[in-house]
């Protein structure tokens, strides 16, 4: 098992390196230069030179390639490790993502601020999708061809075809304008603040240390933070803000999970051992839940892992619709502002997280089906 994990981690190194290169090059390939984007179109050559030097943009991108777009050769260095790519990769290995050009702040602290929004949203959506999707699928399979089954499957087909951004807007219209039940946007009501747990517990934290960034990351998971510190008002408010975006984002994975649970369970229910269990008089509910369900879970877990990717893509749209300052929004803004460090850091984090999730999914197979030996 541990051997397998190690081998898988090693095997993902080429992919991770590839991701690193792609992320780095994509950021450089975006047209327009950072200086003009930051200092304005009328920035003088000297000002730009100073700006580029300050941000390390005067160095060749890779040895002998001065810039990628437009492709300019030249700028061969005696020491190839002084190129932008190697400086970037080297800093990265030391946990340094660089400074945001636009905000003049370390990217890590921006990650600690923005990542939690998206994680909270995605996890909430995934929870809804699983908690609603799996029971729907089970009911559909057990009551095969009943009106409930047909309705669920029609709903699931419509669900997978739903544009997230449209659903989000429609939900916002229905629940905040027509019914006036929930707030249409934002993460928390203006004026209300979620006091970070380290303040509540009176921890002395130095804002310059990496520890602060880690604590800040967890404090920005508002649900978790308000839960552990007992700020019930805040918790209620955050939840009310979270419901609509999470519901919108959950639709597609929910539909996929319900469909997969249904077809997988139908498959398993037709197996001989299920018939044997029925024959020996095991109650129907126990047959479904104990004998069949666990065996039907395997493809469902795979599909849950896979849908996390589309969840992240959907998060960009959901954040735009609901005005949430998450990963999607900042990436989008960073691309327009040529904020290379931000683009690099956030795409890298997402891609690495995605690779990690796939590994977790593979590992969960052994738990769900002991017959599978990971080699």
């Amino acid at each position, binding site marked *: 098992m541990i051997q397998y994990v190690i081998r898988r981690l090693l095997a993902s190194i080429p992919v991770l390196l590839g991701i690193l290169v792609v992320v780095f090059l994509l950021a450089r390939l975006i047209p327009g230069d950072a200086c003009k984007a930051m200092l304005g179109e009328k920035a003088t050559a000297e000002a730009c030179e100073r700006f580029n030097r300050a941000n390390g943009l005067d160095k060749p991108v890779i040895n002998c390639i001065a810039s990628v777009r437009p492709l300019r050769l030249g700028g061969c260095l005696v020491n190839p490790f002084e190129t932008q790519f190697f400086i970037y990769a080297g800093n990265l290995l030391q946990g340094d993502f660089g400074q945001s050009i636009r905000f003049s702040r370390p990217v890590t602290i921006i990650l600690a601020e923005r990542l939690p929004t998206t994680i909270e949203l995605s996890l909430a959506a995934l929870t809804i999708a699983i908690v609603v999707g799996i029971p729907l699928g089970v009911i559909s399979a057990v009551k095969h061809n009943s009106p409930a089954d047909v309705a669920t499957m029609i709903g699931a087909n419509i669900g997978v075809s739903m544009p997230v951004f449209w659903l989000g807007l429609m939900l916002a219209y229905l629940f905040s304008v027509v019914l006036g039940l929930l707030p249409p946007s934002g993460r928390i009501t203006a004026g209300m603040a979620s006091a970070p747990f380290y303040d509540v517990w009176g921890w002395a934290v130095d804002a310059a240390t990496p520890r602060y960034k880690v604590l800040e990351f967890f404090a920005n998971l508002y649900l978790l933070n308000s839960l552990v510190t007992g700020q019930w008002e805040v918790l209620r408010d955050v939840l009310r803000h979270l419901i609509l975006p999470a519901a919108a984002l959950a639709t597609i994975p929910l539909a996929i999970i319900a469909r997969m649970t249904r*077809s997988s369970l139908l498959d398993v229910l037709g197996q001989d051992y299920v018939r044997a269990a029925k024959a020996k008089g095991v109650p129907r509910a126990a047959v479904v839940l104990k004998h069949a369900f666990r065996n039907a879970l395997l493809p469902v877990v795979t599909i849950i892992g896979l849908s996390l990717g589309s969840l992240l893509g959907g998060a960009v749209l959901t954040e735009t619709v609901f005005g949430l300052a998450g990963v999607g929004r900042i990436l989008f803004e960073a691309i327009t502002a040529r904020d290379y460090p931000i683009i690099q850091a956030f795409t890298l984090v997402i891609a690495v997280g995605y690779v990690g999730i796939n590994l977790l999914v593979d590992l969960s197979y052994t738990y769900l089906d002991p017959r599978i030996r990971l080699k």
Partner: protein
Amino acid sequence: MATAAPAPRLLSAEGLSDRPVSLWRTTWRRLFQRRSAIVGLTILIALVLTAIFAPWIAPYDPTDDLIGDEPVEARQPPCIHLLGCPADQPQHLMGIDSNVRDLFSRVVYGTRYSLVIGFTAVGFAVVVGTLLGALAGMLGGTIDNVIMRVMDVLLAFPALLLAIAIVAVLGPGLTNALLAIGIVSIPIYARVMRASVLSTREMDFVSASRALGEGTLGILFRVVLPNAMTPLIVVATLGIATAILDAAALSFLGLGAQPPTPEWGSMLGKDRNQVFTAPHLVFFPGLAIMLTVLSFNLLGDGLRDALDPRLGRKGTKLGEA
């Protein structure tokens, strides 16, 4: 939905039928036994007809405003005579948009964009992906490794985010959005094709054609490719649904089709702030996207069942959902 499809009739009354059973004819027959597939196909045909006959269906020009032509205001809600809208007012089935244009006409013309986007993006991805997958599968070794590792890297990014990044590189616009979505979906087809090649490569009929003197390319195009068509068609049909959805998302974010192009995603994106005052501006384009995507999804599911010979007998198996 669960009607058990009868097995293809190999035996006629006199014994073996003299006519070979055609895969396509069987597939068509099976397809029409599935209610969801029929629904999908019907919607799709209606959409294709709408796209072709858009100039005759749409009462107004999709990009021309009505200022001075009619007594209408921007963002006026739908006025349908049948539903009690006074007959002296001009009829606008889906209302008026922010630029005083007839929304119905724009939605009708939008069908053209969505269908073209879906087919082109997926067509591009299928051609490139199939070639890469076939090369990887046929040649094996280092080439296989390199191609598939590059595909792994592409798959490591959530599709929509990668598409956003590619559009950022290429610049916003409908063509670039198309290209981005095409590039992002290449790995899927490469994988499907490679898997098919790997499984067909070792078949006896492939060895037979090799023994008959067929070269690698000939085997690829005349023997392996036709056998890989089945999964490709299914994946591509479902892929069109995703492509349309992603293209609409890119346009929604302002990266795809630009106004005044009557593209659904861009119509939605441009008027999304009006949702609280004029929800019809958001409702109808979104509904159109959903219907289009739904039709491809239903058709893709139906095709998957119809093309899978294992499903013929049991009727209720995987994927019937």
